[in-house]
């Protein structure tokens, strides 16, 4: 096996951080560039701007005009895309190892040279609004949007990454370009490469491409992390369909804290194991989990899941249950609360934690077997901590004790500090109730 799991860190003089990991088992390289800019950095009036800028990064530079930009990677057998999240925006290309130069050129170029043509801005406004309209078709998007607004008093995590429609209609080309110039700068970026390359030769190429790029001072948002949800509220929404969605949201700790790992194990016990990698690799079902047993095996609901995102500031831990229309949400909430109370009042058996550790190890192995995923993980971890977060992921989970799980249940799953969101089918005309 020729996988070198050692990450090398390099810093260019302009502040660009470069992470490399050589893996020679297949002739592929995956390049990711991560910018510390996401909806976290946005304020009312420009919500959604980070995501829109991401779209504009596919609209061309003088060297790579629109359409040439996407053709360049594709014709070289590469796949590429981009994503915007709460804390970051990232662009990636995975392609044959002997074609890496084109990806290096392209990302270095569009860090500073994107055109933001006014006509393209207007066309993309429609595309982004269309994307939002597609999201709005989903009951869960509607519910989540309302729950997040209630869960944060001030913090920008309250807003969906795609932004508010009113802002998407109002943002100007000048707003977009300013955002791009402010945040797309080497000292706000982490460049990650994994795959079949020679690190020394690669670094020379990177230095040639990025070395002359000036860094800017980056405005960091003056955000006060919201450590608790200062209320307990029930948000009810109604809409078409025959499905009830019940979402219970608690404050989750920053991924930088040990508590995050305790909550990860707690979530595994409650709703089943889940990978926090955003690039698949595999999954494990949750039928043995406590909440599946208590609300699905008792026919109170048809599905349950949990969600925890790794973020800079405290975000949300969410439990989602899906109910047929005739079922009672109060019974489900009661059953969930009862299970959480058991975890708050009692130490779980070590064997349960051992199972969660085994599951986490398996998911981690599945999620880090591909070169694209290796590069993803290194950069992803760097957005809220640093790459050692990825390297120590398993050992930190192995250190979780029953007492730490109990503390996480007591501290984070407090029923007096949470938002409950319920989406119910609208009553149909002529239906007797």
């Amino acid at each position, binding site marked *: 096996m020729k996988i070198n799991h050692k990450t090398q860190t390099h810093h260019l003089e302009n502040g660009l951080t470069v992470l490399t990991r050589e893996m020679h088992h297949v002739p592929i390289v995956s390049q990711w560039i991560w910018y510390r800019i996401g909806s976290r950095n946005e304020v009312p009036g420009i919500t959604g701007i980070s995501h829109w800028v991401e779209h504009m990064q596919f609209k061309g530079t003088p060297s790579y005009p629109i359409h040439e930009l996407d053709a360049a990677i594709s014709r070289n057998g590469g796949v590429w895309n981009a994503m915007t999240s709460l804390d970051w925006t990232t662009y990636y290309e995975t392609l044959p190892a002997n074609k890496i130069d084109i990806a290096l050129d392209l990302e270095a170029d569009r860090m500073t040279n994107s055109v933001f043509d006014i006509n393209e801005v207007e066309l993309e406004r429609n595309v982004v609004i269309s994307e939002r309209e597609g999201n709005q078709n989903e009951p869960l998007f509607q519910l989540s949007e309302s729950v997040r607004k209630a869960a944060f008093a001030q913090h920008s995590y309250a807003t969906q990454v795609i932004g508010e429609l009113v802002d998407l209609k109002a943002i100007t080309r000048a707003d977009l370009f300013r955002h791009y110039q402010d945040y797309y700068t080497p000292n706000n970026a982490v460049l990650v490469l994994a795959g*079949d390359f020679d690190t020394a030769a690669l670094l020379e190429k990177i230095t040639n491409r990025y070395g002359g790029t000036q860094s800017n001072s980056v405005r960091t948002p003056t955000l006060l992390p919201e450590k608790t949800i200062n209320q307990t509220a029930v948000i009810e929404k109604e809409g078409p369909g025959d499905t009830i969605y019940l979402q219970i949201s608690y404050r989750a700790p920053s991924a930088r804290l040990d508590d995050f790992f305790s909550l990860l194990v707690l979530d595994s016990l409650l709703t089943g194991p889940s990978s926090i990698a955003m690039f698949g690799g595999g999954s494990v079902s949750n039928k043995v989990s406590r909440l599946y047993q208590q609300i699905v095996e008792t026919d109170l609901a048809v599905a349950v899941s949990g969600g925890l995102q790794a973020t800079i500031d405290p975000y949300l831990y969410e439990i989602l249950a899906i109910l047929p229309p005739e079922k009672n949400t109060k019974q489900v909430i009661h059953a969930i609360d009862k299970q959480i109370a058991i975890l708050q009042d009692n130490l779980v058996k070590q064997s349960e934690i051992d199972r969660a550790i085994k599951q986490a*190890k398996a998911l981690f192995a599945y999620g880090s077997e591909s070169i694209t995923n290796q590069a993803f993980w290194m950069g992803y971890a760097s957005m809220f901590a640093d790459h050692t977060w990825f390297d120590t992921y398993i050992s930190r989970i192995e250190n979780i004790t029953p007492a730490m799980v109990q503390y996480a249940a007591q501290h984070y799953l407090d029923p007096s500090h949470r938002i409950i969101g319920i989406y119910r089918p609208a009553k149909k005309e002529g239906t007797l109730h």
Partner: protein
Amino acid sequence: MSKTIAPLSNVPGPENITSFILPNGIRVFSFHNPNVRSMVLIGILGGGARLDTADRVGLAHFTANSLSRGTRDYNFQAFHHQLESIGANLSFGCGTQHAWMNAKSLREDADTVFYLAAQGLRFPRFEEKYINRLRAQLLAGLAIRDQDTEERASMRFDQMLYQGHPYGFPVDGFTETIQAINSAEIIHFHHRHYHPEQLTMVVAGAVLPQRVKQLTEKYFADWEASRQPDAPIPPLPQPPTQLLQEHTTLAGKSQADLVMGTFGPARMDADFLPAYLGNHILGQFGLMGRIGKIVRSQSGLAYYASSSISAWADVGAWSFSAGVNPANKDKVVNLIRTQIAEFITNPVTKEELTNSASHLIGRMPMSLESNEGIANAILRMVRFDLGLDYYQNYASIIQSITAKDILVAAKKYLNPDMLLISSAGP
């Protein structure tokens, strides 16, 4: 700068795929991947939704999903405790043509996964309690599907294309058919259609071929062959001869989804690959090909707009889809029709041909990087009788396709005035 030349050993082929057939007819293919800690087991067999009848649409799906709800040796709880305790996954399902299984585990847990896979396929309990619980879950899934504009547009397109033929049935059924299916019907379907003669399994990952053979023999060799012939599938309908448009109204939605198209080549037709490469130019390359360029990039009318070819052994569909503001739906339909008209009139350019061929060839190592990718590639070669050297010859096969081949295929299947157009939304 690369230290390695494209390693042939990473592309599955006759010299690195190990295969054998058990006396009961089970075919097994394995590929050892020493670079990973996990293994993937996939398989297909009879029991696809094409065997459903109009009053029991969803029976094949219901049956497949029942296989993991308890078996001869393990009740539901114990079955999933075994799996989840080792961080493994095992699921059963079905498509139109086949039932399938899909499993993944760490290499040290291969024995458990083979054992439970055999249990599920061979000895499901079909307990009434779990059938009814699964029914509630399937009905909830249908309720969610019925509010999904993309799903509804696609489902209606299939129904329009196949005109009552089982290939047009939604695999997951309808509310009324799922409500009507009883446990006796599920047991009968399993008894009638799950047999070793039709089972093909592929294993890829950190398990040696000898171990795969040992485990297959241990858990599957005594499965007795007893297959009866399936009922004949009705003849396929004719392609559309005019434009036919239908809209499914869904209240409370902001966006409409659109699916339009007609029949395409079957996977084993000689013109499949020319059509596939042509479709890549038309609606896939870069940001969704010519269709994406005109609809999204140049007109800003949709977040997504692309084309695709889906093909089985005996038939295929060539379709175009987009998510649009309802006010722009007709504009998008017309833009796509204009692109189709151009595509069947003039050959693709040399540059387009070179670009798309390079992309398809260049991305192959990426699609074969994961165990899942390798296993599915092997299954595809076997299922469609492509030859085990298909991916090793893939580059030359793709490079041999000409613009004329593509034009001939395009003219054969596409006509902008003979399309089915399905949309769903407000």
